[in-house]
């Protein structure tokens, strides 16, 4: 039982991170029907930005005196930076192709992914960027079950971001404009919604959430690396498809499922097959319910 609870906690932490990344995929798909394969690189870039910001604060000595403030600052900086990066990428790589075939935009996204990951390698080096270790040391130890403060922070922060996003999309004017653009770009333009602005905003929000996931990842695993975006990116994409791509609630649920399946597959069956289990679930869902478990085209919940 304790073993099960420990694995559940592990799964929740990992799933939460996947969910945050999956949201970006799903939001962008909801608005312009593009699978943004460069999204995993926003996650990595966010991790790097966080590492740089935190090391800078640590160098100034603020880490010891105001850790929470430093962390908030790092999150704000990294999220803002990635939002800016994503808007730029959208302008350069996707906007000119908006009228072209979907394949062209998809290839452009793949190219952007390789470009960004190699760009990070060349500018930040091939070695891991290390996170300061003083944050959130220790945790609750119940013998077999250990919950670190870090895990609690990650899970609660993830929940807060998800709730915030839900409020933004379903309760505000901006959210309404996003949902309208997702439904019909032309018609929403006729009622004076600037679809280009909304698309940029969607990219910015999605990348901001990925950046937040990147910092959490760096804090949790201790370091970030230029190639770290690829695998979580693919997993998060699977999570988005699993939940029903274009559906926000679906992305969250999908992320948690993929994280759980991976951890329980590794914990109870075998570590080497954990990716297999995660993707078997995906294939199964696509086979029996191609719209994903939460459905793809319910206009109310679609961004």
């Amino acid at each position, binding site marked *: 039982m304790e*073993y099960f609870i420990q694995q559940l906690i*592990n799964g929740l932490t990992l799933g939460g991170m996947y969910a945050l990344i999956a949201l970006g995929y799903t939001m962008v798909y909801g608005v312009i029907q593009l699978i943004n394969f460069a999204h995993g690189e926003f996650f990595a870039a966010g991790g790097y930005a966080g590492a740089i910001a935190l090391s800078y604060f640590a160098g100034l000595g603020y880490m010891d005196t105001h850790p929470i403030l430093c962390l908030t600052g790092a999150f704000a900086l990294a999220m803002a930076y990635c939002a800016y990066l994503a808007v730029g990428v959208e302008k350069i790589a996707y906007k000119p192709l908006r009228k072209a075939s979907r394949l062209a935009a998809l290839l452009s996204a793949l190219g952007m992914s390789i470009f960004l990951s190699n760009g990070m390698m060349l500018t930040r080096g*091939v070695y*891991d960027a290390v996170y300061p270790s003083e944050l959130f040391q220790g945790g609750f*130890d119940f013998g077999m079950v*250990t919950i670190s403060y870090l895990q609690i922070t990650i899970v609660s922060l993830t929940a807060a971001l998800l709730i915030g996003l839900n409020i933004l999309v379903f309760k505000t004017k901006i959210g309404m404009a996003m949902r309208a653009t997702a439904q019909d770009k032309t018609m929403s333009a006729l009622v004076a919604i600037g679809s280009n602005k909304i698309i940029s905003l969607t990219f910015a929000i999605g990348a901001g959430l990925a950046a937040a996931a990147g910092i959490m990842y760096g804090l949790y695993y201790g370091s970030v690396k230029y190639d770290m975006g690829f695998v979580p990116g693919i997993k998060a994409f699977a999570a988005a498809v699993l939940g029903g791509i274009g559906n926000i609630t679906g992305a969250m649920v999908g992320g948690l499922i993929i994280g759980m399946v991976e951890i329980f597959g*590794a914990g109870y069956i075998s*570590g*080497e097959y954990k990716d297999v289990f995660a993707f078997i679930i995906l294939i199964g869902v696509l086979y029996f319910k191609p719209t994903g478990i939460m459905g793809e085209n319910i206009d109310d919940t679609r961004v």
Partner: protein
Amino acid sequence: MRKRVVSIVTLCLILVPFLCGGVYAKTLKIGSMSPLTGPYASDGTDIKNGVLTAIEVMEEMGGIPGYDKIQLFPQDTACDPRQAVAAANKLINLEVAGVVGAYCSSSTIPASDVLDEEDIIMITPASTNEKVTDRGLPYMFRMCGRDDDQAPAAAKFMKESLGAKTIFIVDDKTTYSQGLADGVADAAKSMGMNVVAHEHVNQGDKDFSAILTMAKKANADIFYMSLQGFSPAAMMTLQAKRLGMDSQIVTQDAVFQPRYMEVAKDAANGVFLTYGFTDPTTPEYKAFEKRYVPKYGKIAAYATYAYDAAMSLLKAIKAAGSTDSAKVKAELMKLDFQGVSKHVKFRANGDSGSSYIAFKVEGDKFVPYWEPVNGLIK
């Protein structure tokens, strides 16, 4: 008409030195193969830097007679067998005199098959799998030790020094890590220890919480971590500590990288690993340190082996006075000198012997702790 002839002749005369330049400026071409991108790029870069240092030293010592300069053609294998074969073919087309590399055993083996067809000498600084030299290729050499030396040394250390009875093994299924993990499992069993589990993770994994929870439950005396590269090993160590695992972590040569402690921080303290013994007090090592550190930073796992491999190759070419592989090989076999990493003397099969001892991580240093013959190092 005559004016034209004169001008053409003049033009030709002007061109002569340029044409001759191409003929007389001879460059000795050396290849290196290591992962410069991908998850093992850091180790691969160390190898490239080690070879570059050797070339620098050789050129300062007067270079190689008959050649104006020595040029390195570093190739990226990405630790991928297909890319390694492509890199080998590229080096063949460049007509290199010899190759230092590759890093992953799974790259070295197929690449050496290709190079062997062209009789090009290959010296690996880092591939420890037995098959590298056991296939009997005439021009395959190895600077580092072998897995079947390392595995028994590790098992002996765990039994005699740590008094272990149970072991939990994890590897990431690469030719290197799995081969070594299997070797440790066999050696441990034959010494009467109990291998409670032998689990696998995937290359590129960052989250090991599931496996570590399993290992924590098993509560073996030793958690033997066999992973390709220091970066996943550092992450695993950090996560193991956060999970409150009590087993003693023992790992191997791929983790011998000062950055391991940077990433794993306090969690690395007290971890044991086996690695070939390099005496840091020799004048050779000190000279290397003086030259390498300001340029490339801390000396890492394979920089010294790569330096010695490149140095052996260049020395042999210099002694042979030719790049003919048979002659260079004859000179390589005659080599007997104190290198940076160890004393270099090749055996008939291309191996250069092993010197595995156990190191303990203390702070930001790997401290020699135990050696197979005399036990604890004081």
